[in-house]
């Protein structure tokens, strides 16, 4: 009887050890699909500004900025996020503390004119950028942005897309992200760190 109990305990110990080893070794597999390092992330880009002129990423240098991808026909997430960024920017240092850059993932419908009117709708400066389908695709790739059209049934469509906000310091170095469901306080703290970086 005593022997049997010992054997069971031994088996349990082996099982526990096996589970432990499994978790330790399997951790790397559970890491995000793409490891983000500031050196490899992003990259120089050329898009089209709201005035119809080319807009290069070097024009953003010298001031921290946040990058958000969306589209102007977006009924909920994009206006909510942009309104939130305007508010968070005021909490973190004021309208001039950093640039809010809004890049369309729907260049088909969002030309420079659409981006210009839309960017002015939030009562604070926002830089609206569009470009050719190829330019937008390249920028999406550089910044790891996913987007996919979804038909709404009436010939219209919306776009599923990455709604994470990307933060860059005044030298254009990637510093952090703000997730759509993140609380305001940690988000403001990140923005403040970005401003002083």
């Amino acid at each position: 009887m005593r022997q049997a109990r010992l054997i069971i305990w031994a088996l349990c110990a082996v099982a526990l050890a096996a589970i432990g080893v499994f978790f330790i070794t399997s951790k790397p597999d559970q890491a995000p699909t793409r490891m983000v390092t500031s050196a490899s992330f992003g990259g120089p880009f050329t898009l089209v500004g709201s005035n119809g002129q080319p807009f290069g990423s070097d024009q953003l240098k010298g001031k921290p900025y946040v990058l958000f991808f969306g589209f102007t026909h977006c009924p909920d997430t994009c206006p909510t996020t942009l309104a939130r960024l305007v508010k968070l920017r005021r909490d973190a240092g004021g309208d001039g503390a950093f640039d809010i850059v809004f890049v369309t993932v729907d260049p088909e419908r969002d030309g420079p004119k659409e981006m210009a009117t839309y960017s002015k709708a939030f009562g604070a400066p926002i830089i609206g950028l569009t470009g050719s389908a190829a330019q937008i695709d390249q920028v999406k790739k550089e910044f790891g942005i996913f987007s996919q059209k979804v038909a709404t049934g009436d010939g219209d469509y919306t776009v599923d897309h990455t709604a994470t906000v990307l933060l860059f310091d005044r030298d254009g170095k990637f510093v952090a992200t703000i997730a759509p469901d993140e609380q305001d306080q940690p988000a403001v703290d990140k923005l403040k760190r970005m401003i002083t970086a």
Partner: protein
Amino acid sequence: MKNALFFAALLLASCKPADAPPAVSIHGAWARATVPGQMGSAAYFTIRNSGGEDKLLSVTSPVADSSLHSTSTDNGIMRMRPLDALEIPAKGAVDLKPGGTHVMLMGLKQPLQPGATLELDLKFEKSGERKVSAEVRPAGEGAGM
């Protein structure tokens, strides 16, 4: 004994609160303003229910194609999907809010001006139709997620 249990179960099943009539009221309805050329926006409100369960079947508006949608975020990717109906629990409340369940307004016939009102017709399974006036608020407001 088995029979007694069966009848007890039957009794329990028949006295669930769903049989009580719902008592729904709609609060704080608002919609986000749009700029010329912008075809889509969203409207939000809170439904309170002090009675039995109900279902919101549809929301229509004279100035846009409207439908119930949910926004979900998974791994940073925002996805918006139509909802067939919205369950209103007995003695509960449902919040439609930015970044969550909302009334999607597409194909707007004219821009929604801040300060204007947007008429919405809500159709409930049991409570029938309700009319609501949503206040149009500036796009820069409603940042809460």
